[in-house]
C-alpha cells in the first residue's frame, strides 16, 4: 500500500503540528520565586504526583500535536492505494477499461440497508471516476433479457455515468462469463485503446451461478497474440456470505380426496442458511388484489442446505380462473420468497341422466347407481334424473353432459342430441335390455363410436360357475385422463368387475375416430370413446345396473363415473397454465373467438402499471405477445365491442429466475485464478485481505483529531 494525497499542496498545514512545541519553548513562563514556610509538604506532594503529572504533560503535548497534524493531513485528503493499483495507473500509462455491472436478480440482496446492486453501482461509478481523462471506457450492464452489448470504449464519461446511473437491477439471470467476454471483445476492437493496456472491472456479488468457469477466460485478441486483461473484481458483498431461503417450486394438482374442486398444492422450499430454520411460516393465499385472502397458514422446516416439499390442500369454493400464491417471510433476497400460480378450477358439471328403465325398487332402477355416484360430495357433477318418457320437456343445451342409460330410443330428440354433442356436449351411453341396435343406428349413427351389433352373454347370472365364466376388464388404457386415477391397488377395483352380458360392436370404421379404453378379456370393447364435433361420446357396452354386470358394486364405479362425467364435459382436461419465467415472451391467446371484436387491449403488470403488447402478427389471428420483466400476477385487459374489461382467464403468473436464488459465492481466488492468477486479477473490497481499494483516510484522520481534541479538553480540565 502506498500513500498519496489529493491536495498535496495543503500539506504545508502540517507545520502547524509544531505549534505546541514552539509555544512550549518560546512562551514558557518563568516561575515566580515565592518564600513559603511549608515547603516540606509541597516537596512531598510533588513527589507523589510527579509521575502522573509528567505523563499528563506528555499526553497533553501529544494530543495537541496530533490534533493539529491530523486536521492538517485530513485537509490534504490522503488515500491508501495498493501497489498493484498504483502500478496500474502509474508507469504503465493509460488503459482502456470495460466496466461490467452485474444487474442479476441476486443483486437485489440487501445487506446493511442497501441492496448489493446499489453498492455495486457505486463501486462501478467510483471506478469510472478514477479513470484519467485520457483513458477510454465502456460500460456493460449484465442481467435480464437483453443479450450483453458492449459498445466500443469512448471518452464520453458523462454518457457512461448516465448509463450507470440509469441502470436498474433485474429479476433475471446474468451470465457474467458472456458479459465479460463481450466487454473484452469491445476492448479488443477498440481503435482508441489499441496502444493502451486493457482493464476489466467487474462489480458483482460473486455468486457462483453467474459464472461458467468451465468456459475459457476472456482474452484480448491483438495482432501480437492474445493477452489477458487486467481484471479487478469489486465485491459488492464485501466478503459476506449471503444466506437465503426461497421457494423453488409451486404446483397445484387436482385432488378429488380434498373436494369437488380440491387441489393438492406442493411448495418446494430451498434453504441456504447457516443452520436449519424450524417452523418457518409458509402462507398460501387465494385470489389477487383486494380479494386476496389467506387460505392456509403452515410451517416448514427449511434445511440448512437443500430443499423440502410442503404439501397443502385447498378446496376452491367455485370454479373458474383462480390465483394462488405461496409466501415465505421476506428475507434479504425478497424476490424469491413469493411465487404465484394461476389455475382454471373446474366448474360444476351439469349432468342429465336419462333413465331408460325406471323401477320403483331402487336397486333395480337403471339410474340408481349412476345418480348415487354423481351426487357424491366429491363429485364435480350435479345430476338431474329424467325418465325416457319425460325427455321431451328437457333441453340438452342446459347441461354439460348427458347419460343415456338403457334408453330404447330418443325419437325426435336425437337430432337435438347430435347438435348438443357437436357443439361441445358430452354423451355417455350405457346398454341394456331396452336398447335396440337398429334404432340407435338409425337415430344416432353419427354419435356412436361404433355401430351396435348383438348382445353377447358370457355367462348366465345365477348359474353355477357364472362368476368364473363372466367377462373381465382386461385391456385398460390406464393413461386415459378418466382412468388415470386408478393406480396401484386401486386398479383391482376395475379388474375385478365381472360382466355377464354385453353388447358387441361391429368392426370400427377407420374414420370413426373411436378409441377403445377398456376391453373385455375376450377382446370385445367395453368402453369406447369417440370425438364428435367439439364433443365427446363414450359408449359402455354393458349396463350400469346389476342386470348385466356387477361394476356398480365395485369400488371403481363411483370414481369412474365422476371422472367420466368430468372428462366428457371437458372439465378434466389437463389445462395447467405453467408460470412464465421472467423475460420469456408470453403468447396471449385471443379470448372469446365467438365475439369477433374482442382483442387484447393492455396487460397490467404486478406493479399496477399497464404495459404495451406487441402488435398482432399478420396471419396469426391477432395473437399478441408480451415479455414480462417483473415476477408476480400479470392481468390482461380485453377490449370487447369497444369496452375494456379485465379477463381473469388470461391472467398469468410470472416467476423470477430462480437460478439467482442460489446465492452461494465463489471463492475469490477461484475466480482470479480463472482470469489468469494474481498477476492479472485481483479482488477489491472492504475485507481485511482486500487489497486495492482506496481507503478514505481523511475521515479517520478527522476522527483522530476529534479524539485528540476531546483528550486535550479532558486533560486540561
Amino acid at each position: 500500500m502506498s500513500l498519496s494525497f489529493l491536495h498535496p499542496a495543503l500539506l504545508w498545514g502540517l507545520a502547524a503540528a509544531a505549534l505546541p512545541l514552539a509555544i512550549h519553548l518560546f512562551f514558557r513562563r518563568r516561575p515566580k520565586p515565592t518564600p513559603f514556610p511549608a515547603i516540606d509538604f509541597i516537596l512531598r506532594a510533588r513527589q507523589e504526583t510527579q509521575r502522573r503529572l509528567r505523563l499528563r504533560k506528555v499526553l497533553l503535548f501529544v494530543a495537541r500535536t496530533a490534533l493539529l497534524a491530523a486536521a492538517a493531513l485530513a485537509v490534504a485528503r490522503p488515500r491508501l492505494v495498493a501497489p498493484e493499483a498504483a502500478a496500474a495507473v502509474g508507469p504503465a500509462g493509460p488503459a482502456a477499461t470495460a466496466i461490467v455491472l452485474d444487474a442479476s436478480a441476486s443483486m437485489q440482496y440487501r445487506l446493511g440497508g442497501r441492496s448489493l446492486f446499489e453498492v455495486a453501482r457505486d463501486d462501478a461509478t467510483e471506478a469510472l471516476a478514477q479513470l484519467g481523462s485520457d483513458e477510454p471506457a465502456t460500460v456493460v450492464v449484465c442481467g435480464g433479457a437483453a443479450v450483453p452489448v458492449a459498445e466500443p470504449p469512448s471518452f464520453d464519461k458523462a454518457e457512461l455515468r448516465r448509463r450507470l446511473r440509469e441502470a436498474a437491477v433485474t429479476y433475471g439471470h446474468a451470465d457474467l462469463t458472456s458479459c465479460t467476454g463481450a466487454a473484452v471483445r469491445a476492448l479488443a476492437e477498440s481503435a482508441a485503446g489499441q496502444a493502451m493496456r486493457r482493464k476489466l472491472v467487474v462489480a458483482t456479488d460473486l455468486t457462483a451461478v453467474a459464472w461458467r468457469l468451465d468456459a475459457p477466460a476472456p482474452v484480448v485478441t491483438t495482432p501480437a497474440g492474445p493477452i489477458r486483461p487486467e481484471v479487478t473484481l469489486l465485491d459488492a458483498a464485501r466478503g459476506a456470505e449471503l444466506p437465503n431461503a426461497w421457494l423453488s417450486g409451486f404446483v397445484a394438482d387436482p385432488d378429488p380426496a380434498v373436494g369437488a374442486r380440491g387441489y393438492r398444492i406442493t411448495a418446494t422450499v430451498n434453504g441456504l442458511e447457516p443452520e436449519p430454520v424450524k417452523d418457518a411460516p409458509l402462507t398460501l393465499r387465494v385470489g389477487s388484489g383486494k380479494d386476496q385472502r389467506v387460505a392456509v397458514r403452515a410451517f416448514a422446516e427449511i434445511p440448512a442446505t437443500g430443499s423440502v416439499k410442503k404439501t397443502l390442500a385447498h378446496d376452491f369454493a367455485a370454479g373458474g380462473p383462480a390465483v394462488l400464491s405461496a409466501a415465505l417471510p421476506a428475507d434479504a433476497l425478497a424476490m424469491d420468497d413469493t411465487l404465484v400460480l394461476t389455475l382454471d378450477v373446474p366448474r360444476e358439471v351439469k349432468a342429465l341422466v336419462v333413465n331408460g328403465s325406471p323401477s320403483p325398487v331402487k336397486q333395480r332402477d337403471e339410474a340408481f347407481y349412476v345418480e348415487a355416484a354423481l351426487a357424491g360430495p366429491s363429485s364435480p357433477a350435479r345430476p338431474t334424473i329424467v325418465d325416457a318418457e319425460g325427455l321431451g320437456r328437457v333441453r340438452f343445451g342446459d347441461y354439460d353432459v348427458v347419460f343415456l342409460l338403457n334408453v330404447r330410443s330418443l325419437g325426435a330428440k336425437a337430432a337435438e342430441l347430435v347438435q348438443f354433442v357437436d357443439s361441445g356436449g358430452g354423451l355417455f351411453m350405457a346398454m341394456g335390455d331396452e336398447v335396440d341396435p337398429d334404432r340407435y343406428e338409425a337415430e344416432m349413427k353419427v354419435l356412436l363410436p361404433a355401430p351396435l351389433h348383438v348382445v353377447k352373454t358370457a355367462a348366465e347370472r345365477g348359474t353355477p360357475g357364472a362368476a368364473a365364466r363372466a367377462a373381465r376388464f382386461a385391456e385398460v388404457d390406464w393413461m386415459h385422463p378418466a382412468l388415470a386415477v386408478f393406480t396401484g391397488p386401486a386398479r383391482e377395483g376395475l379388474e375385478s368387475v365381472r360382466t355377464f352380458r354385453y353388447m358387441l360392436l361391429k368392426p370400427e370404421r377407420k374414420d370413426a375416430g373411436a378409441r377403445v379404453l377398456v376391453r373385455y378379456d375376450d377382446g370385445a370393447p367395453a368402453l369406447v370413446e369417440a370425438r364428435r364435433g367439439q364433443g365427446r361420446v363414450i359408449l359402455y357396452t354393458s349396463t350400469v345396473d346389476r342386470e348385466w354386470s356387477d361394476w356398480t358394486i365395485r369400488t371403481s364405479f363411483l370414481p369412474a363415473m365422476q371422472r367420466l362425467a368430468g372428462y366428457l364435459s371437458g372439465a378434466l382436461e389437463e389445462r395447467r397454465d405453467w408460470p412464465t419465467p421472467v423475460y420469456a415472451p408470453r403468447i396471449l391467446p385471443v379470448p372469446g373467438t365467438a365475439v369477433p371484436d374482442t382483442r387484447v387491449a393492455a396487460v397490467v403488470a404486478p406493479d399496477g402499471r399497464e404495459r404495451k403488447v406487441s402488435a398482432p402478427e399478420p396471419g396469426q389471428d391477432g395473437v399478441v405477445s408480451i415479455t414480462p420483466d417483473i415476477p408476480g400476477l400479470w392481468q390482461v385487459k380485453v377490449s370487447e365491442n369497444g369496452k375494456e374489461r379485465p379477463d381473469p382467464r388470461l391472467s398469468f403468473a410470472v416467476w423470477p429466475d430462480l437460478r439467482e436464488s442460489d446465492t452461494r459465492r465463489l471463492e475469490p481466488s477461484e475466480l482470479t485464478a480463472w482470469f489468469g492468477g494474481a498477476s492479472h486479477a485481483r479482488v477489491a473490497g472492504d475485507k481485511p485481505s482486500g487489497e486495492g481499494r482506496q481507503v478514505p483516510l481523511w475521515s479517520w484522520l478527522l476522527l483522530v483529531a476529534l479524539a485528540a481534541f476531546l483528550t486535550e479538553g479532558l486533560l486540561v480540565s
Partner: protein
Amino acid sequence: MAEHEKSLLDPEVLAKLATLRLRVRAVAEGVLNGLHKSPHHGQSVEFAEHKEYAPGDEIRHIDWKAYGKFDKYYVKRFEQETNLRAWMLVDASGSMGYRGDERRLSKLEYASALAGTLAYLLVRQQDAAGLAVFAGSVTRAVPPRAEPSHVNAILETLQGVRAGGETRLASAVDLLVERAHRRSGVFVFSDLMDADERVLRLVAELRRRKHEVTVFHVLDPAEIEFPFEEPTLFLSMEDSRSVEARGRDVRKGYLELLERWLEETRRVCAEADLEYVLARTDRPLDEVLVPFLARRERSAA
C-alpha cells in the same frame, strides 16, 4: 462604638498600627470588653473572710450556710490571686516571618501580638508574665514578674524580634525545664514547623512537670488554603531548599498532607493534655483569645 472597636481588632487594622504596644492595648481592651460580657468572672480570686451584710453589697455573695447557722446575713469576701507565673514561648524562626498577604500581619507579628496581649492581661491581674523568644536556640528571655512596668519590657523585647533561622522548640523547652521550678502556665506561639517531628512530645514533658501548657498554632491562611495556581518557585524560609511546581498540580496533595499533619497535631495535644488553639493570622485576635480565656475561666471555676 462596638463596630469601631471590633475593627480595631482586625489583623489588617492591627497591621497598620505602628507599634506592638498600640496593638496590645487595642487587643487587650477588646478582650477585656469581651470578658466583661461573660457571666464568668472573678475566678482569679480566693475566699478571704466573712463580713456582715450592708446595703450595697452583692446579694449573690451572701453566704446562706452562715445565715442558717447564725441567723444573720454575712457576705463572702475574696482576695485576688497573685501567684500565677506564666511563660510566653514565641517562635521567631524564619518560617514565622511569612505573610501570605501584605496587608496582613506576619505570623511572628501575630504571635507577638497574642503573647503581648496575654502578658498584659496577666500582669493586669497581678500575675507574673515572662517571655522566651526562640528560633534555633533561645535568643531572648525575660523572666516572669508581676509589676505593671514589666509589660513594657516584654513588649519591647517582642518589638525587637526579627524572624530568622530554623525552628527548634526544644531549646525553649530546655530553658523552661531549667528555670521554671514551680507550677507555671506555658503559652507556646509557633507554627510548629520544627525539624524535629517529635517536638510536641517534648512540649508534653512540660505538662508532665505540672505546667499548664497551651499551644497557639499560628498559621497563615495561605498555608492552610494554598491559593497558588501558576508555576511557582517555592523557597524555603529556614534553609536553602526550593521547589518548582504548578500550584494547581500539587494543591490536592499539599492539602491532604496538611490536613493529616493538623489532625496528628491535635491528636498528640489531646493525648498529652495540652490545650491546642489554631490561630489563623486573618482572624481577629479577640476571636482567638476570648474563647480561650473563657475556657480557662470555666475550668478554673
